[in-house]
């Protein structure tokens, strides 16, 4: 008897303890929040949530925390160093950089999140239906997505910018057109594996229509990976917006965005001598994207119990 007791590993002992506590009613089986608790025990994910919320809240409540208008020119006070008057100084046109970063966050996050959500809507709508239904439409969409994804994304984005012109709305449309492929494929793969489940066959036997089966009954089971994908693609689109605006080809330069703030660093004079014009913006972009990536990775780990670091 004693021998078997000894052979138990540490993990098994832990399980025993949990079982005992469950039996005595000390911990309730909180099924719904299991993923959430796992996310909260991931230190990097919590750090990500904190970073992202701080920047997000600052952007939302921008008028409350900024003393200056991000667009107001003040040529008398241009290129001021950081001071109590202007927390991060002023740029080459005398605009307050702190205000520009905080207000710029609104646009950058809008572009990132908006494009991620829009491509998710397109990708999931197509992927869920064609993945379940199969057939010719499925084949066509698969080839189309292959073609879109064969372009290096930045090339396709710039090609569309040339044709459609710059602008906030165009940028979101372009990102959606070029970015739906990944989430479409993932949703389709999920649907392909769900299709063989018994409940789906039962629903079909009941005579439910295809739309109802695909969207109402199967899709909710694929929601985990979709949320992870939206999170990670938000980060990706924010990086794209920043890169395009840095090149001067994204959001028009008169609107403050994080990329447009760093754009000034293309001028070597500002890059070398006026660090506060672009370094704070660069840090905020990197921090925000880092935070989102932390959250995305944490969500992936907590949504998928099979995957262990």
């Amino acid at each position, binding site marked *: 008897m004693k021998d078997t007791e000894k052979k138990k590993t540490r993990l098994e002992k832990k399980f025993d303890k949990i079982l005992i506590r469950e039996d005595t009613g000390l911990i309730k089986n909180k099924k719904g929040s299991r993923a959430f608790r796992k996310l909260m025990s991931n230190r*990097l994910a919590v750090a990500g949530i904190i970073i992202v919320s701080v920047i997000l809240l600052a952007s939302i409540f921008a008028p409350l925390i900024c003393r200056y208008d991000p667009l107001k020119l003040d040529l008398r006070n241009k290129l001021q160093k950081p001071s109590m008057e202007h927390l991060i100084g002023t740029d080459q046109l005398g605009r307050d950089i702190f205000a520009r970063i905080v207000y710029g966050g609104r646009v950058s996050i809008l572009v990132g999140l908006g494009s991620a959500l829009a491509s998710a809507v397109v990708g999931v709508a197509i992927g869920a239906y064609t993945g379940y239904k199969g057939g010719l439409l499925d084949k066509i969409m698969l*080839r189309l997505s*292959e*073609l879109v994804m*064969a*372009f*290096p*994304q*930045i*090339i*396709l984005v*710039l*090609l569309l*910018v*040339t*044709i459609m012109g710059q602008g906030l709305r165009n940028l979101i449309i372009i990102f959606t057109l070029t970015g739906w492929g990944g989430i479409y494929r993932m949703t389709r793969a999920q649907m392909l594996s769900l299709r063989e489940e018994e409940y789906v066959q039962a629903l079909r036997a009941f005579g439910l229509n295809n739309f109802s089966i695909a969207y109402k009954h199967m899709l909710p089971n694929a929601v985990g990976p979709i949320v992870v994908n939206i999170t990670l693609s938000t*980060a990706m689109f924010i*990086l794209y917006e*920043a*890169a395009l605006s*840095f*090149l*001067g*080809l994204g959001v028009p330069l008169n609107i403050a965005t994080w990329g447009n703030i*760093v754009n000034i*660093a*293309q001028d*070597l004079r500002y*890059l*070398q001598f006026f*660090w506060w014009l*672009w370094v704070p913006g*660069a840090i905020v*972009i*990197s921090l925000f*994207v*880092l935070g989102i*990536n*932390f959250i995305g*990775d944490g969500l992936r780990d907590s949504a998928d119990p099979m995957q262990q670091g």
Partner: protein
Amino acid sequence: MLTYTLRRLLILIPMLLFLSFLIYLGLELTPGDAVSYMISPERYATMDPAELEAVREALGLDDPFLIRYAKWLGGVLKGDFGYSLQSGVPIRDIVFDRLPATLELSAGAIIISTIFGIFFGTISALKRGSIGDNALTLAGMLGVSVPRFIFGLLAILLFTFHLKWLPVGGRLRPGYEGFMDRLPHLIMPTLVLSATLVAGIMRYSRASMLDAMNRDFMKTARSKGLPEWRVNFVHGLRVSLIPVIVLIAFRLPILLGGTVIIEQVFQWPGIGSEFIGAVRSRNYPIVMMIAFFTTFAVLFVSFLIDLFTALLDPRVKLD
């Protein structure tokens, strides 16, 4: 093998045709007179309207759309890619002029990032859970989160302005020609591009190595009494490398995308900066043709990778 190759080629052809059709559609829909990029600008400038009309007729610009497309495609196949709207230089010359610079940069970056990515990833997997592993994982997250151009700007600030080690950009000072003269210009863009690529490769090779370490043949190798380094690096690493190499090859489009930004930051005279310049000046023919070529290259490379993995992996059925 032959039938497999042929079938893959047969899938490739309709995709390329469709792609070229889209590109031509784009060229037709963008503003500007088609004649202006189909004949050399010297001729265009010296012709009177009647002559122009004759040329238009001869080029078939009044033909139905599909016939125009077929003629354009025939020209492309023969190497006639049209002319730049601004400078009037044949696009073929521009591409061949700029291509070596881009190849030099991306070949360097892919070699460096592959070596370092696999090295760090393998170390990370072998020392799983250690401080070094965590530090590398965190560095990898940072690597995918910081925009490429910011890496570039910080590198310029550090190595050019503070340490004064390297030139700020460009490829060659006037009057110099050899590779050694180019080297100082090449170092920074290559390293920055590599740094941004290392993160992904590192992550993947770590996972692949962890996977290999759990396999049975590792136990066999150990039970034969082989030294630990031999088990890990000869038996484990070799198996973990295959998926990593395939991934790197599949990431070529991302590499090309990265080159566009890095070339712009460092004023590197490659295809990428030409592309950005063309986008800025709305030089439609160049934008379209470069997009066409890069996509063609990507499709062709993925075709080669498919063949290559099929050759390597006995589980892939060839017929």
